[in-house]
């Protein structure tokens, strides 16, 4: 059931990065090769420079979401509509402005991380 899951990180620490929009966690190489499953419009796989802009190594915690629609945690974290995969609980940076604009153009919601 469900749509295809995102790639699963191939390592557990180094090289992990999180997508600044959907918070999907993969390794740098994975992002570079196949982009972000939730945010294909970033076209990270086409433009490798984008990976650095769209993802961050600074994130807190990992959540593996098996069933986004049923998982309360996923809903709480607002990743309930994304594909199953490994996400982070929070990223510490905001998406660069130009990419935020891109999201807007694509009519995709982007919520910057909450600063406390």
């Amino acid at each position: 059931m469900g749509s295809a899951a995102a790639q699963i990180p191939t390592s557990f620490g180094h090289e992990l990065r999180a997508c600044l929009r959907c918070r999907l966690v993969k390794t740098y190489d994975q992002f570079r090769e196949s982009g972000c499953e939730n945010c294909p419009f970033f076209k990270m796989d086409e433009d490798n420079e984008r990976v650095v802009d769209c993802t961050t190594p600074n994130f807190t915690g990992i959540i593996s979401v098996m069933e986004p629609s049923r998982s309360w945690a996923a809903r709480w974290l607002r990743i309930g509509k994304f594909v199953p995969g490994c996400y982070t609980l929070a990223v510490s940076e905001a998406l660069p402005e130009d990419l935020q604009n891109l999201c807007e153009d694509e009519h995709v919601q982007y919520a910057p991380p909450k600063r406390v």
Partner: protein
Amino acid sequence: MPRRGDEDDDDLEPEEEEYQAYDEDEEEEEEEEDRGVSSRKRRRSEFIDDVAEEDDEEEDEDDDDDYGGGGGGGGGRRPRPKRRSGSEFFDLEAQVDTDDEEEEEDGEDDFIVDGGAELPDEDDGRRIQRRPLLSREDEQEDVEALERRIQARYARSSHTEYDEETTDVEQQAHLPSVRDPKLWMVKCAIGREREAVICLMQKYIDKGTELQITSAVALDHLKNYIYIEAYKEAHVKEACKGLRNIFSQKVMLVPIKEMTDVLSVESKAIDLSRDTWVRMKIGTYKGDLAKVVDVDNVRQRVTVKLIPRIDLQALANKMEGREVVKKKAFVPPPRFMNIDEARELNIRVERRRDPMTGDYFENISGMLFKDGFLYKTVSIKSISSQNIKPTFDELEKFRKPGENGDGDMASLSTLFANRKKGHFMKGDAVIVIKGDLKNLKGWVEKVEEENVHIRPEMKGLPKTLAVNEKELCKYFEPGNHVKVVSGTQEGATGMVVKVEQHVLIILSDTTKEHIRVFADDVVESSEVTSGVTRIGDYELHDLVLLDNMSFGVIIRVESEAFQVLKGVPDRPEVALVKLREIKCKIEKKINVQDRHKNTVSVKDIVRIIEGPCKGKQGPVEHIHRGVLFIYDRHHLEHAGFICAKAHCCIIVGGSRTGGNRNGDSYSRFPSLRTPPRIPESPRRFSRGGPPLDSGGRHRGGRGHDGLVGTTVKVRQGPYKGYRGRVVEIKGGSVRVELESQMKVVTVDRNFISDNVVVSTPYRDAPRYGMGSETPMHPSRTPLHPYMTPMRDPGATPIHDGMRTPMRDRAWNPYTPMSPPRDNWEDGNPASWGTSPQYQAGSPPLRAYEAPTPGSGWANTPGGNYSEAGTPRDSSAYANAPSPYLPSTPGGQPLTPNSASYLPGTPGGQPMTPGTGGLDAMSPVIGGDNEVFLMPDILVSVRRSGEESVVGIVREVLVDGSCRVVLGSSGNGETVTALADEMVVVAPRKNDKIKIMAGLLRGSTGKLIGVDGSDGIVKVDDTLDVKILDLVSLAKLAQP
């Protein structure tokens, strides 16, 4: 079609697909119903429940062509959407993402239980139906459909905004319910938390639905545990089977209330980013300021740049293999690395290019240097990043050698982050330091949350510009007079003499030294103050011994230095003295003789009859080595202090020759000293001048009260052991305000002992019990020892005004008694003995004084100050030995009334015997009814020529004036209002009030009723209902 946007897409939602077939059946049924029933418009305006209906509409418009197929299920329709362009698809899908989320929320919300399962399904159905419609558009040119499409798009975009704006509220809707899966806490191998959850994910992908968990969480801050979300514990255990990193023997359920806490990590995430200032926590660099260069949150490491603390010689020795003698506790001072120097010491320096950043680093035995800084990668845990406020000096040092301030602007960002709220105020001159508008100057017009609206200086620009506050810096120009409001120099004032970017050089008003401060820490102000009144143990107006054995009185306190008027008579000599240059405070109590061999003690009023300051007079504040420090309020220099030789002065009013006895000796032998007491007091009175005789007598009368205001200890009875202040004396008993209990009790006079050690070392020994004794001035507040300028009864009305009201307030904690007075009294006894005429006067006095000890000066008969204008009061006043008045400088604010009537009793001391009698005998002791201003009450301030303004008393100053914040809510400017400029705002029924007089002084309460001139007050603390004089109540400022 507002719903349209919501409805498309979600192919990815497994659940929806699951239900799809069922959905469409349902839709069909509904369609049929709908057709016969209602108009489209109505349906559109309805809410979620209508979703299905809307779908129907679409189908209607599709000419029902699809109807037959629709029943067949999603499969048949699916291919159609593919015809749409990719971009459209994404649009819609993304849009829906958010919307769907909402819908789900709604659905899962407890209120709409049923909806939860259905809604997504409906979505699916809709999507499927609409797509055919769209695909046909071209052929049919269906205007209506086009219109709807536009509507849908419009609705969508507005919806998006809404969604973003209300995230916090929405988040509430996500709170876990009983129908959600639960979180289970499972132990896992330490350090393998992330690995474990990723493995679980992998396992789910491999095994598919067999794994009935919905998510797994690894928190960075929680070691040894992961959370797994599942409906049942068994599912958790099943999922963990075979994973060696997870120990699922024990699975703990997370209570539903704590579920959100588990996932709330945002707040805990330390926002450590580039250019943040941090401090090292451990090692050689412990405490050192460092700047973050790079952060690796995954590895929990951070690269910082520091000023190296490297002993090159030791390093060279080490590299050459020589024995390195490790000196313990030696930390090399921070110094920029000089590569050339290192080379000279034959230290091998490698120059390498960092592959990531492309920067070149010098590598010396593994340490990386660039531009003299050490680049060090450390664990995030070994630095502290919270509340780092680099000092000015540190930042100065951190500047790259040769770099000017310009490049430093970026690093100010952390400083700015530490700005307090309300940093900028309307009218501030500011300069833009970042962005396109850099260097644009302007004035603050309006301050919003983050943006500051400025009125730019330059013409041709919009009237106001909104600038992020982080891009703004306060701007000053040379010549501005400013006050430092934060940082190490806080409180200093001065004139800006130079502006270097964000750094100001200020010529301090007091030290006349240059101080360097951040423009950010400064506000424009005409105030001239040092802000501080004490450093270490030394306080303004203290007499101190300096390094070179010279001495002087501190006349101004700077943030790091004192101005000291040296004890050099004849010519004022002021020295700027640092704290370390002061040896000690001179606190000895010494008496000297004036020109006429009168004993001069501290607080005696003397007149200078020789030297440059001839003619000046004032109370003696300090005596040391035959030198007097006299405080003359009218002397504008040196904070009013004049230094003069004792023999160049005469004690005012004292023309007799006095003995040299020190009063202290008396105090130890109360029995001996009793008789002389009365006589001695007269002398004090005599200062006023001719009318001394009578004054002397009254003096004695006043003497009764000596006990009032003293700190005593209860020796017997239920309050044995308690300490307190004598509030009043009634016959054989005294009323004592207990220090520890905040209440006043009546104790037998014989049960108290007053030789309690109080804060002042000067205090006299016990004198209680002796009705005829002269008054004692018990405790003083150390803070205001010098504030009683006007002891002199002959003083001008103004002075009277300032001092009078306080006199009674001996018991009042706010009324410090000046210690010097004691000296003064002590000194006095000597004189009376030799002045027969006084003695003559005293005996009768004593006769009646004895029975009413302490009825004294402290209490005015009837004592209500609110009626201060009445003659009776004045007389009471007069009775009060005026010399004492000055001694109670105590910051006690006067009521305006008292000030006004005081002048009417000039001198107050030529008293008639009758008044003296009144004073002494008066049975009514109402000393606790005076009204004085207190902080937090509302007053109306009327200054000459101005409208009266309501304000809140913030602070009551020593001279009776108050610092008042204007505006009834305390948001106006702060002014200092004189006592007679303020009138207490009378409270009305139901107002919160503060009691300004009586035993409950200081208490707050609510005025629950008014009865004539009485107010019925419910006291906050005790909830007692009291009837108090309205005049003693003031409206309390609402916080």
